[in-house]
C-alpha cells in the first residue's frame, strides 16, 4: 500500500438475499483507494450500491468478501467494540438527513462525539466553538436543530463530523435534501477541509458534484464502470 493511501478496499463484495432466494450483489468486486487529504466521490443511480460501499468502508457494515485495509489492518475482521473505538478516533460521518440529535443544541451536537473521550469539557467547548465559527453559524450556537434550516443543519453536521479531528469523513448524499446554492456551499466547505489532510468520501447520485472531487468513480449495479 502506498504511503499516501489512507483506506484501501480490495475485491469488496456484499450480497443480500432479497425475497426468497434472489441474491442481490449490492457491491460486486470493487477496488478503491482513498488517498490522504483527497476528496473521493462515488456517483451512480439510486440502488447502485453506493451506501452499501460507504457503510463497509466506514466499518458500519461487514463485506461478504474482500478486505478493507486501514494502515495494513483489515478492519472487516474487527468486532463491534473495536470498530467503535476505531470510528471514535478516526472517522466522521455526514448523513443525508443530517441526523442531528433533537435534544441537543447546535453547539452540543457538535461536541457530542467528544463526550466519551478523555478530553476536558473546556477544551471540547473551545473546539466546538471554533468549528461553529468556521461553518459560519456562531450566532446559532444555542438553537435546537428544529430551529435551523436544512442548510444550517447540514453545516452543523459537518462541524460535528470534524470535531474529533478525523482522518476521514464519510458523507452519504450530503446535499441530497438541499437546494443548489446550499449544496454548493456544503461541498466547498467539505473541499476546504481536505487541505488539512482530512480525506473525504462522498457518495451521491448527483453528477453535478463531480467538479468538487479529486477522484470520481461511477457505480452501476454494484460495480465501478
Amino acid at each position, binding site marked *: 500500500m502506498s504511503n499516501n493511501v489512507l483506506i484501501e478496499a480490495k475485491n469488496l463484495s456484499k450480497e443480500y438475499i432479497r425475497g426468497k432466494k434472489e441474491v442481490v450483489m449490492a457491491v460486486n468486486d470493487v477496488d478503491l483507494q482513498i488517498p490522504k487529504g483527497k476528496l473521493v466521490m462515488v456517483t451512480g443511480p439510486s440502488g447502485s450500491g453506493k451506501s452499501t460501499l460507504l*457503510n463497509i468502508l466506514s466499518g*458500519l457494515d461487514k463485506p461478504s468478501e474482500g478486505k478493507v485495509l486501514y494502515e495494513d489492518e483489515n478492519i472487516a475482521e474487527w468486532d463491534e467494540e473495536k470498530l*467503535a*473505538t476505531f470510528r*471514535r478516533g478516526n472517522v466522521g*460521518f455526514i*448523513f443525508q438527513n443530517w441526523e442531528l440529535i*433533537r435534544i441537543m443544541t447546535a453547539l452540543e451536537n457538535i461536541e457530542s*462525539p467528544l463526550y466519551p473521550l*478523555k478530553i476536558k469539557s473546556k477544551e471540547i467547548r473551545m473546539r466546538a466553538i471554533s468549528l461553529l465559527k468556521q461553518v459560519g453559524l456562531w450566532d446559532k450556537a444555542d438553537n435546537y436543530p428544529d430551529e435551523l434550516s436544512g442548510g444550517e443543519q447540514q453545516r452543523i453536521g459537518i462541524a460535528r463530523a470534524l470535531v474529533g479531528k478525523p482522518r476521514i469523513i464519510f458523507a452519504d448524499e450530503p446535499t441530497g435534501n438541499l437546494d443548489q446554492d446550499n449544496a454548493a456551499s456544503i461541498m466547498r466547505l467539505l473541499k476546504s477541509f481536505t487541505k488539512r489532510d482530512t480525506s473525504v468520501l462522498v457518495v451521491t447520485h448527483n453528477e453535478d458534484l463531480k467538479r468538487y472531487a479529486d477522484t470520481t468513480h461511477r457505480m452501476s449495479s454494484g460495480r465501478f464502470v
Partner: protein
Amino acid sequence: MGTYKILLKSIVFSTRSRRRFFTFVIVFSILSGATIILLSYFDNFSREGLLEHRGVIYEASTLGSVTYDDAQGDIDPGTLGAEAVIYYKYVNFGTNLRICSIDTKYKWGFSEIKPNDLVAGNFPSGDRDALVSDQLLLLLLDAQAPVNIYTKPVVGTKFRLGRSDDTEFELRISGIFKKPESPSLIADDTREWIFIPEASFEDLLSSQNLNYDDSSDLIFIHSVSIIASGDVFSGVSYNNVDAIAANLGNLPGYDSPDFKSKTDKDEQRNMMFLSLIFGIFGTFMVSTLYSYLITRFRRREVAVLKAMGYSKMNVRIVVLSEILVVAITGFVIGLLVIQGFLWNPLGRQSSYIYLIIMSPTAFLSFLAVVISCIPGFILITTRILAVRPIEIFRQK
C-alpha cells in the same frame, strides 16, 4: 472521565424532551407516593400500629390498682399460646418519681410511649439506658430519691438515682420522649416517669437494699401486653388476638381492652394491598412502559451515537440516565408532597410518622422504586444495544 461526562450530559439532555419528561415525572411521583404510603404501613405495623394488630393490652385502670404479683396470677402465658407477655412494672421512687420497666425487644409493645414519641436520642437498648420526659427539669433534688439533674435533659447525660448515697445507681439518658396527652396514666400522674430496660429495673431494685415485696414498697404494673403469634398479613395474628381476648375477657383492676373490629382490620389490609398494586406494581409497569418508549423514541439518536463511535457502555449510560433521572425526580416530588401532608401546620406531629424524609420508609421506598425499574433497564439495554445504525439509516 469520559463516562462521567456522558452521565452528566445525559442527565441534562434527559430533561429536554419536555413533554415526555414532565408527564412521566408526574406519573412517577404519584406512584412513588403510593409506594411510600404502602411502606409506611409496613413501618407502622412493625412499630406502634403493630400492637393493635398483634397484641392485647391490659392497662391498669388506675395507678396502684394491680401489683406485679397479682398480674402474674391473672395471666398465665402458658395456656394463652402467646408469643410474649410483657409486664410494664413500676415502683415509686421517692415522692416525685416513678421508675418503669420497658421491653427492648418489643419496642412498640408499650401502649403509652412509642418509638415515635421520641423527640431526641434513641429508645433504650443498652442496660443502663434511660428514657426520660422532655419535662424532666421539673424534677429536682428529692430528699428521699436524689436525682442529680438540674437542667433540661440532654441525650448522653449520666445521672444517678438512689435512696441513699451508697446505693446510687448510674443511668444514661439515651432518649427523650414527648409526654403523652391526657387521658393517660403517665400524663395524669403528678410524678415524673423514667423508663429503663427490664434488666436494669431488676438491678436497680436490688441495689436499693429494699424489699419491694413489702406492703409499703410494692411493684405495680402499668399494663400488660400479650403479643399473639402469627403474622399480620395473612391475618393469623388477628385470629390469635381474638382467641386471647376471648380466653381472658375483662379482668378486675384493668380497663377493658380495646379491640379493632374485624371490618376495621380488613379495611386496613385492603388499603395495604391497594397501595401495593398502585405503588410497587404500578412503578414496575410504568417504568417498563417508559423504557419501551425510550427505546422507540431514541433509536435514531442511538444509531447516530453508535456510528460516531460510542461504545455499548456509553450508549447504555445515555439512555439509562433518562429513566433514572425521571424516576428519582418523581420519587423526590412524591416524598415532598407526602411530607407536606403529614406536616401539621401547628407544628405538632400528626400520625405516627412525622418526618418521613428521614425515615427508613423513605429509604425502602427509594429502593423499591429502583428495583421496580430493573426490568425496564434490562429492556432498554437489550433493545438499544441491538440497534444497528445501517438499518436505522435505511429507514427514512
